[in-house]
């Protein structure tokens, strides 16, 4: 597809006439609409060879948060940066206050850390159901599968579901029926669960999205004795649901693998390169004052209930947040921004003396430069974050969190989650109808669409374990009279900070530099900045692009017109690009269609 500014000759060269044969289809979902940032996605598919031959990810909206933050009072950062994404409606402010706390040199009191952890766990309990049943779910529903893979659907109707005793759906076909958008039981239930989870979040941090009681130095929530019991009451309502969700996806995923082995390659990452920010801090470290000090970031990062770090080519590369930070770079070769190399470099070294690239977020300067769409030049408002020049992905969030945690063997001991040897064992308490259960998640062989979704389903029980653990902590602090929720701070004339966290869909960092008591630079890297990224200076495609390129066409169609591209959509959606959308791709000529979604890929 030749877009703008290319001469007819160039067009021919890029798009040789042969490629326009009836069996090469171009599809451009545009703009990949909705939740916080619009994503458009372009693919070229050779229907004979059953291969995706080109893929481009386009962030189609720009708002300018990083520019707006420049020159402001640093205390405004959390409230303003929160508005970067209303779907990840709590994590931005938390990450921002952590970056500020590092810059101000203040540590929140232990109970405030606990309350942020409880809010963080609740956010996942809202976010994952939303994705599993309103966004990704429909891709596996009867309504879609019966159209795109009719024989598979017939088989599903006859295949008993392994865990039917627990989740109550006798066959895979019944499960698929319940996933139907707007009418299916699972779809409707999920909306309710997200509301319960948002109430839990609001008990801790005021409201969701854009929390009202989160401040640097702690929280401003007024402690009422019933705050934690109100939270617990709501949590108990989710116990049984969480068990069934894990097993529902277990059954679905195994069914797909068994019936269509090529599913292993749908949405596959070429290499197992993962980055994770870690989440849920150890409140005990707040007492020592180490929390959020940059030079102690390795220590407090490794005490998180989800281990941060990087996996390179399947091997654990580091669990140190300092290494994770120093290796970060953001490129704009294919993005609508100007290069900032000519500007004086802000920081040569991090506070520990590690040299920093000019493309490191602390040094990056956001200079928007809108322009036409051109595949060879600029085609997106997203940037290309890389780690030591490596394309890394966030595994759609849970897959990275589980993988790091399961192989690093570092999480503090607790009664609910055991990690190590590539496994996670999660104990979910007895609920209204189901007994206490232990669920087990294992590191898979590959990263692909199904595994991203499976991990997400297991992450709901995981965060229930996290919430239980910190509720017990909260009661312990209350008993001991440790009820302080805020510590005073001063804004320094100069300061450097970075907050590391996890949004539902993965890595999140905010980088802050203060000069003359004002924000001198503010940079945000969201999971979708990483996952939706375009090609980089080494011409390596971003994770969505790569996942689409690796996707085999296993869909059944007899004429090209029937081809929907469902598996490419399953791939992109498995990264959790925020909200529901349904599958509809149009083929035939240059069809432009609007579909899918992403989250805050352009800040």
């Amino acid at each position: 597809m030749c877009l703008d500014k290319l001469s007819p000759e160039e067009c021919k060269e890029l798009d040789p006439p042969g490629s326009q044969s009836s069996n090469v289809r171009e599809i451009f979902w545009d703009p990949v609409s909705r939740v916080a940032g619009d994503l458009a996605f372009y693919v070229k598919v050779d229907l004979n060879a059953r291969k995706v031959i080109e893929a481009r990810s386009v962030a189609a909206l720009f708002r300018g948060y990083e520019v707006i933050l420049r020159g402001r009072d640093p205390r405004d950062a959390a409230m303003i940066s929160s508005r970067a994404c209303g779907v990840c409606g709590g994590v931005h402010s938390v990450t921002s206050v952590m970056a500020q706390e590092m810059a101000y040199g203040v540590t929140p009191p232990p109970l405030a850390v606990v309350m942020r952890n409880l809010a963080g766990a609740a956010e996942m309990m809202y976010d994952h159901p939303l994705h599993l049943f309103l966004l990704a779910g429909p891709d596996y529903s009867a309504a879609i599968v019966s159209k795109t893979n009719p024989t598979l659907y017939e088989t599903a109707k006859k295949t008993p579901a392994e865990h039917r005793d627990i989740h109550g759906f006798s066959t895979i076909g019944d499960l698929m029926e319940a996933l139907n958008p707007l009418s299916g039981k699972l779809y409707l239930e999920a909306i309710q669960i997200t509301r319960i989870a948002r109430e839990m979040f609001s008990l801790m941090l005021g409201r969701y999205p854009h929390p009202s009681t989160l401040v640097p130095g702690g929280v401003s929530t007024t402690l009422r004795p019933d705050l934690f019991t109100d939270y617990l009451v709501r949590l108990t309502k989710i116990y049984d649901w969480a068990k069934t969700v894990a097993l529902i996806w277990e059954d679905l995923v195994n069914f797909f693998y068994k019936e269509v082995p090529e599913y292993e390659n749908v949405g596959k990452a070429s290499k197992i390169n993962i980055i994770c920010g870690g989440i849920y801090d150890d409140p005990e470290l707040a007492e020592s004052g180490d929390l959020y000090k940059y030079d102690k970031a390795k220590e407090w990062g490794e005490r998180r209930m989800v281990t941060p770090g990087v996996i390179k080519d399947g091997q654990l590369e580091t669990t140190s947040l300092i290494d994770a930070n120093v290796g970060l770079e953001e490129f704009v070769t294919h993005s609508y921004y100007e290069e900032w190399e000519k500007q004086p470099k802000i920081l040569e070294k991090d506070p520990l003396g590690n040299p920093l690239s000019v493309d490191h977020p602390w040094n990056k300067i956001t200079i928007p430069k809108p322009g036409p769409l051109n595949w060879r030049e600029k085609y997106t408002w997203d940037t290309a974050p890389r780690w030591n020049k490596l394309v890394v992905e966030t595994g759609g969030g849970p897959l990275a969190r589980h993988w790091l945690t399961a192989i690093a063997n570092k999480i503090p001991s607790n009664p609910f989650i055991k990690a190590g040897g590539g496994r996670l064992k999660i104990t979910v308490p007895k609920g209204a109808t189901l007994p206490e259960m232990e669920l087990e998640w294992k590191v898979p062989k590959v990263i692909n669409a199904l595994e991203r979704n499976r991990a997400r389903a297991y992450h709901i029980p995981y965060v229930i374990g996290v919430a239980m653990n910190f509720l017990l902590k909260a009661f312990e602090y209350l008993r001991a009279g440790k009820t302080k929720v805020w510590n005073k701070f001063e804004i320094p004339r100069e300061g450097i900070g970075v907050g590391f966290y996890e949004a539902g869909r993965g890595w999140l960092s905010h980088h802050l530099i203060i000069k003359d008591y004002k924000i001198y630079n503010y940079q945000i890297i969201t999971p979708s900045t990483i996952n939706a990224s375009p090609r980089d200076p080494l011409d390596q495609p971003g994770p969505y692009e790569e996942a689409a390129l690796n996707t085999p066409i296993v869909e059944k169609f007899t004429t090209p017109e029937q081809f929907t591209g469902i598996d490419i959509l399953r791939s992109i959606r498995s990264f959790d690009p925020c909200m529901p959308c349904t599958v509809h791709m149009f083929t035939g000529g240059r069809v432009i269609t609007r579909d899918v979604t992403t989250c805050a890929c352009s800040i």
Partner: protein
Amino acid sequence: MGEKKIEKIYVLWMSTGLGCDGCSISVTGATNPSIEDVLAGRLPGVPPVVLVHPVLAVEAGEDLIEYYRKAERGELDPFVLVLEGSVPDESIAEKQQGWWAAFGFDKQTYKPITTVEWLKRLAPKAAAVIAIGTCAAWGGIPAARNNPTNAMGLMDLLGKDFKSKLGLPIINVPGCPPQGDNFMKTVALLILAVLGLSPPPELDELGRPVFAYGETNRQGCPRAGFAEEGTYAQEFGAKECLLSLGCWGPVVKCNVNRVGWINGVGGVTNMGGPCIGCTMPGFPDAFSPFYTRQSEHMLSLRFGFLPGSIKKSARLNTMKTKTDKSPRWK
């Protein structure tokens, strides 16, 4: 609309303003009524409501865009148009042949159709036009100081005198995001009005539904009793009045303290958060830096014994000149 029988009402949502989609999320949390209630036709006497929302639509892709194209051709009648996110100034991006925000492509030229273009095409045909959230209503965060897009509210684009087909001004449901029920109630009232069943919701001079924005945050705040006794919070987490920590409640129009955030749970000052004025045209710049004592409050903080009537007139004046006024409006 009187005689023609209305079989379906369409709600066309545009989420491609400059925003974060937090408003959509807030609306999916509403319980009174919930979005399922309205879509399933659980309001007595109301025909099916078809919500065309990129987040919840069953149709997607070209099927979804087709609704907007149909509305443009006058084939969807009646429809309510909802904008989420602020309106960028496309003339800036156009100079470099780019765009800030777009929605769908022109089938002939493959050029993106900008959000601004869609709004100009659709607004005159809509029975009612709603701006959801502070972004769409007044410009909000994307319109804050330093912004590169020269973002604005819908009223700034369509003009203060704009009237929809029903003769209504732009209905503004501000808040960043608005409390979900405030929006859903407004829509429910509007639908009843489109059907000729109820009068349209009462609006104030800036098009805000009075039931939600007729009172100040302070008027519904459970801490107001502390203020009356002259006791103010000395640090975050304390239970007293938050004026001392930078709360703007007395000059902010909002009902969240009364109704709670979701299903009656949560809120702002009721939970301990100083109000930062997120429903107001002046947000964020008139309220920033947040969490600092504002000179406007010195009167209350220093002279707790002042008669209420004096405080009231000082507050009305602050709203008129600062907080209830967008910096765009000279």
